[in-house]
Structures are given as C-alpha cells and as structure tokens.
C-alpha cells in the first residue's frame, strides 16, 4: 500500500480536521488512522492515509495541504511513511 502520514502542528482552531478531511475525501484519499496529542502546548495531529486510489501526484497534494495549513495558521505536512518506518522499525 502507498501510505502517507499527514501531520498538523499548531494552535488548535475550529475546523482543522473538517477542512483536511473534506479535501482528502474529494480526492479519494482514505484515512486509515487518526491520533492527536499536545506537545509543548502545541496541537499535534497525525493521520495515516492511503494514497493508492488517488489520481493526484503526491507533490501536488503536499502543496495543497500546505496552502490549507497557511489559511488556518497551522503547519500541515504530508510525508511518505517510509521515512518513519525506516527510522523507527528494524
């Protein structure tokens, strides 16, 4: 499976998850898992998403999520999951 990790870091505001999820749904990106935590007073959310059904190029999704983040005043990042797997799993 072609998986990605979306992270949202910043000050919590209304509608962050809604906005991200709407964009993902419109583009056939399935959410596999969502979790969130507070680190150093910052809202941290993580979504594991399946990128195998979408027609859009990963770099375009990265740019789009980045612009949603800028609108909301938070940092939204999509990364391919292999970077986390290689660092944290033997």
């Amino acid at each position, binding site marked *: 499976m072609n998986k990605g*990790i979306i*992270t949202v*870091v910043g000050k919590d505001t209304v509608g962050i998850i809604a906005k991200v999820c709407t964009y993902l749904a419109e583009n056939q990106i399935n959410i596999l*898992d969502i*979790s*969130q*935590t507070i*680190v150093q007073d910052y809202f*941290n959310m*993580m979504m*594991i998403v399946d990128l195998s059904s979408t027609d859009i190029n*990963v*770099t375009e999704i*990265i740019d789009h999520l980045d612009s949603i983040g800028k609108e909301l005043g938070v940092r939204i*990042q999509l*990364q*391919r*999951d*292999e*970077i*986390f*797997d*290689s*660092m*944290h*799993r033997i």
Partner: protein
Amino acid sequence: MININEVVETNQMILEDNLDVRTITMGISLLDCASTDLKTFNQKIYDKITKSAENLVKVGEDISKEYGIPIVNKRISVTPIALAAASTGATDYVSIAKAMDRAAKEVGVNFIGGYSALVHKGTTPSDQILIDSIPEALSVTDNVCSSINVGSTKTGINMDAVRDIGQMIKKTAYLTRDRDSIGCAKFVVFCNAPDDNPFMAGAFHGVSEADKIINVGVSGPGVVNKALEACQGTDFEHLCETIKKTAFKITRVGQLVAKEASRRLDVPFGIIDLSLAPTPAVGDSIAEILEAMGLEYVGAPGTTAALAMLNDQVKKGGAMASSYVGGLSGAFIPVSEDQGMIKAVNKGALTIEKLEAMTCVCSVGLDMIAIPGDTKASTISGIIADEMAIGMINQKTTAVRIIPVEGKKVGDMVEFGGLLGYAPVMPVNNFSCEAFINRKGRIPAPIHSFKN
C-alpha cells in the same frame, strides 16, 4: 503501525535539530571519454556528465519534498582527470576544468569533484600537468573541486608531490586573493583517499567503481547534540548507547534516500558515508557535541578521547542502519564550518596542533583551517607531511584543506560564504622544516608489525 510520538520525534529532528541528508553524489566514470584530441575530450566529458546527471537535482528535490527531509547538496564526482585526460597529450588541463564547471552549472549541482590525481607512489606527466594547473583551474571556475592523493599505507608518501603541493597551495591562494583565497577551500590533499567519498572537496570517482554510482553522505550533529542534552551526568555506557541509537536513526534516513535516489535515477547504490558533518548553522556543530559531553571548550584536555568515542559510536550505530558503508565515515572537524570550533579558536582553546591530534582518532583531517598568508610553502608542506604520516601509519584516511589567506594575519576573520562558512586566521608553528621538505623522493611504506 507508526505512532504519533515517533512521527513527532522525526519531524522535530528535521525542523529543530537540523537533521538533513548532506549530499547525494553521483559518481561518473570518464574513462570511456578518452581521446587524443583535447577539444573532443572536453565535449565528450561535458556530454557524458550532463546526460548522466540530467535528472539528479530534480530527483533529489522530489525525494526531499515527498519525505519531508532536506537534501542539502546534489553533487557529481568524476574519474580523476589526470587519468581520464592522459591520452589527450595536452600540456594544460584548465579547459577541462572549465568543461566540468559548465556541465555542473548545466545540471544545477553546486560542486563537481575529480579534478584530481593519484600520485601516492609516483607522478606521471599527466599528473604533473594537472597539479601545475590547479591554481588557475580553481581560480577560473566556481564549482570545480580538486584533490590529490599523495600517500597510502601500502606505498608510503610521495614527498616530491608534498613539496610541489605546498607551493601550489600558495599560488592558488594568490590567484584567488580577491575572494579571501577561496580557491584553497576547493582543494584537498589526501593519504589513503577512498574511491567512493561523496563529500567535497575530496570526492572523485575511483577507477575501481562502476560506470555510474550513487553515494550518499548523511549528517546530523544537531540531532546527536540534542540527544546528549538528556545525558547530563550519566555514565559512559549510557552516553555511548544514546549516540549509537541516534546514529542509527540518522543513517536509516540516509539509506532510504540513497535507495530511492538509486531507483529513480536507475543508477546503482554505492555506499552511505557515516560522517557527522557540521554546518555553520547554530546548533549543527561537532564541537558542541564534544562540549555537551563535558568539555568547557573543544580543544581542552579530553577532547581527543571524546572525539574517539563519538566517532566509534557513530560507526557502530550507523553500520547496522546501512547495507553498504564507505567513503570517509568519520566526524568532520572543519574549523570554518562549525560555530563551536570557531568559538574555541577565538577563546584560545583550540590550536592546529590539537586539531592534528584529533585527526589521529578518526576524524578525517585538518579541514578548512585559515592560516596567515605569509606562511612559507615549505611550512605548508610540513603540515601536510605530518598529517599524511598519521594516515599512513594508522591505516586511515587523512586529509589537509588549509587556506593561507593572502594578506591576512593571525586573528583576522575570513569569510568564505555559504556552507564553507567563516574562520579566524590561526597561528602556525613557523620554525623551519625547509631542509626536510627539500629532500627528494618518497617516504617508504611502513612496516605493519611491531605496532606501538
């Protein structure tokens, strides 16, 4: 499945602790570009370099974006030009350096290495032409890097070349005097130079390598430094375990990037270079790691032991994280590229002699050290000979990248810009070694028994 704490940890390393992949370096063989005509040779190498590396920068940028990890440099290394160009019969190789420079600019890489010669046993006419042309080549090009291997454990040290290089470095400094003698920052002299080093200025594509190869240099002093913050007052076992685990994580990212770059470029993966490479950025410093271990300033007694331990743990952690390890694989201690080193020099804690001692325990060499412009050529050759002897006897790679900055005195500041940073001019021991350096011939290969 990956959990949120692991994701946060990785992203903090990248965003706050300067974790990056320092370089993806594509090695390209130029042996098949041989020609009896210099113009044809230049065209052939330009064509081969630009065709082989046409997607290198794009692929590096894509990987960087998709994984969210900065890849600082995309670079090229080529077959030592003294070998590749020997058949041209030319008497001057500067036009080759210009062709390399044009090719580097065309594909968008920031350095191209391999304006090099391997003279550890003897010097061919082609090697001599190359050495003589280095000052001009480095003054008329922007992105070309040059290196000469003058010694090895198996052959000894070519002292004729060491003598020539002392004078050649002075000439390079003079020709680039309007830019703080920056030409010397693009030249390095080696003992036991590796064929697969991805780091500049010493990268070249060795003759034992395949036609093309991808080598990757990892980095991450900031990450190690951060991890050590949690080790205040702990014992050595805990300290070493922390460094090892951190090195493992850093190197795994390098391995991922290397494999992915290799797949996308359809060029075989060569090696990961397990080097902690600092940058002038605050917090991205080897000196600060040593200080976090408990030294007031780098250079204080205990520095050599701390560096030896750091290097060994980085290798132990990194070796398991990568399928192939090679290159230089040792912590770099460049003065100008490391805030902590600069600070220690300014405090009077760090001298060239201490840096030399540090290179005995597997850092790579005397790197990016600015010295007074009026230092004699024979003194520079003496410094080089000392460093080469350390490499030869200890069966390790050692290197010297030293800049006798034209018109500058001890204590002056020199600004190289960008990744090359800035450096205070350091004092050298000026007692003469002229009669020693002026002897002809080689230092014989050392005996490998009776180790003491």
